[in-house]
């Protein structure tokens, strides 16, 4: 009771509000610092140290400054790895988003079986990645893969392309599989975004005699913008760090043709036990993600300002 009726309020209402606000933020802050901040800072720190297998036992990892970064950037395939990462991300996003949007638009119209078909669409997202990549590896096999068998029977080609073992196609194959995996995510979010657009707006446009193209460019697209931004930002962040799909399909090969920053970081850390260089590569990957995040957040803010 005494607490409810304090004789002398120690906090002014304003300060009290601030405290309450901070109180709401605190749990989230603690969570983020514990599960994201700590590993992040540890990884940044590791990138500046000569962290080897010995460090795990002795706890000693001498500070080496920028040596790890020099080794990573000086690696002769570094340029190719960066371009692979950018191409992989850009092509995957364009493919996933375009196909996802088309599918979302298609399913907006109700037709018999549309609901169950929408469920089926999610399957590629539900299968464990390592399982679907294993199946894709079979299907893309040069000699016995079903894809080349179809190609050989419907085209005049005598033998299909070596999807996974040619330096020019390996990255393309990884992109194709990643698009297939990413479509449901894009379609589901965009479909939800489409559902949020009020029906009245479309009814009004029909009354005004707008063509379907005009309806899309003047109504659907502008009203879908916030969803699009979220889908793209998340898409880039998910794609740039893809590891399992590439490891399962090509292992980053042949000859670094499909190696990305993520698979290179894995190779440094867990195949060559150069944990410092692996951490440095991971940090560079975070820089790339950060760059994209900032770009999209700016775009987002501008669209809100408009």
């Amino acid at each position, binding site marked *: 009771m005494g607490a*409810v009726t304090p004789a002398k309020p120690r906090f002014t209402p304003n300060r009290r*509000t601030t405290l309450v606000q901070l109180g709401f933020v*605190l749990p989230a802050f603690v969570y983020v610092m514990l599960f994201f901040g700590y590993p992040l800072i540890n990884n940044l720190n590791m990138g500046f140290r000569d962290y080897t297998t010995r460090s*795990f036992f002795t706890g000693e990892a001498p500070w080496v400054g920028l040596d790890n970064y020099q080794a990573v950037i000086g690696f*002769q395939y570094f340029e190719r790895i960066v371009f692979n990462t950018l191409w992989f991300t850009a092509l995957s996003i364009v493919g996933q988003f375009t196909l996802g949007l088309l599918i979302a638009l298609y399913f907006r119209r109700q037709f018999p079986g549309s609901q169950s078909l929408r469920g089926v669409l999610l399957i590629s997202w539900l299968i464990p990645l390592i399982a679907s990549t294993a199946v894709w590896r079979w299907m893309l096999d040069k000699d016995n893969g079903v894809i080349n068998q179809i190609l050989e029977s419907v085209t005049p080609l005598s033998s299909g392309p070596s999807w996974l073992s040619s330096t020019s196609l390996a990255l393309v194959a990884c992109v194709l599989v990643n698009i297939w995996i990413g479509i449901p995510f894009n379609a589901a979010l965009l479909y939800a975004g489409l559902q949020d657009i009020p029906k009245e707006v479309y009814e009004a446009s029909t009354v005004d005699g707008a063509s379907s193209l005009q309806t899309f460019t003047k109504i659907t697209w502008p009203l879908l913008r916030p969803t699009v931004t979220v889908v793209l930002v998340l898409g880039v962040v998910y794609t740039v760090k893809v590891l399992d799909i590439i490891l399962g399909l090509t292992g980053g*090969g042949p000859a*670094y043709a499909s190696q990305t920053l993520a698979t290179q970081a894995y190779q440094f850390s867990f*195949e060559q036990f150069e944990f410092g260089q692996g951490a440095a590569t991971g940090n560079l990957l975070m820089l790339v993600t950060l760059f994209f995040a900032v770009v999209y957040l700016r775009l987002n803010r501008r669209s809100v300002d408009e």
Partner: protein
Amino acid sequence: MKVQSARKSVAIVLALPLVLAACGGTDDTGSTGQDEASSDSSGEQAGEEGSEALTLNVMDYYTAEPDNTFYQELLDECGASVGVSISREAVPGDQIVQRALQQASAGTLPDLLMLDNPNLMEIAATGALTPLSEFGISADGFLPGVVDASTYEGELYGLQPITNSIALFYNEDVLAEEGVEVPQTWDELRSAAEELTDGDRYGIAFSAKADFEGTWQFLPFMWSNGGNEDNINTPEVAEALQLWADLVASGAASESVVTWGQADVNEQFMAGQAAMMINGPWQFPVLAEDPSLNYEVVPIPTPNTGTSVVSPLGGETWTVPDTGDEARMAAAAEILKCMNEDEVQLDLATKRQTVPTKLSVLDEFVELNPNMEGFTEVVQTARARTGLLGTEWPAAGARIYEALGQSLAGGVDPAEALAQAQGS
């Protein structure tokens, strides 16, 4: 109302540290580390009385059957003879080194740790393993490759009861049909592979994958020609890579070799898509699933007649991590001795279709397992991957598979691909 809810939130916030502290408290008291520590001490006490309550923690990567059962049984039997019980954990093969490193930093290493033999030096270099000489264990009478693989800076850190390597498998029916002799030299291998290529069937399959599996398969060709991993920019290594490049360029081997692991290679062979393959004895049980398949195993062809093949030494070595608990370490060493008794080696090698590592039991082993004659011959000259470079091996091994990919998929001239890889 507003004030009240604000008050409530303040109370919650103020209580939070308490809640967190409480969580931390339960964590501390409930942690497995404490549990282990307490059971450790009780184990020690019992150890002084007669070491009957001692339970040794063992970690290996035999997750698949039938190996899982073989090792569980073996460890239980050895445990019984030493007078300890065994708590065994099998983790996936690609995770065991990471797990061991985690455990090393947390101070929770198992009492007996299995490692793939090329990883031993990496772990021994951290100081996490105990030299076996402390327990009076030596590797006298073991295959030289095994001794090399388990020795770091002059100290023996592991013992390997069984070993394996790779050799040339060929489909007897196909070779007989085509009237092709079993190749013994590189030239014979080239022409045999070309002659055996027909329609959907390639002459030979091997793994040139962009990981250590590809490197492992290339080593017998590189080593038998006098090449070494410390410098791959040499004519000897280039000639070996040229052989592989020729096989792919002539169509006698699929371009897909750069993506195939050894299990894929075996599938190609079983499906009749390859008349010959490079592979190891761990495929025998898989191959036995098709009784109509008639195959034979011979050593990998050498550059010329008269040279002998130098194959890489496979198999896993067992180590005693430095846990600081003398009684447990001594018991683990006893288990290690038991696993390397003549009879145990013979039995395990027969069950797993691998080769014992003690020279004295090899003759008896071949008598019992005539199908293992080829591999038994091969492992006697087998070379440890870490024998020359020690902890520098992973980097060197990566350079080799990098050059394989550049040359076989990237179309780069073998000598140039090797020079590039060595330069990186």
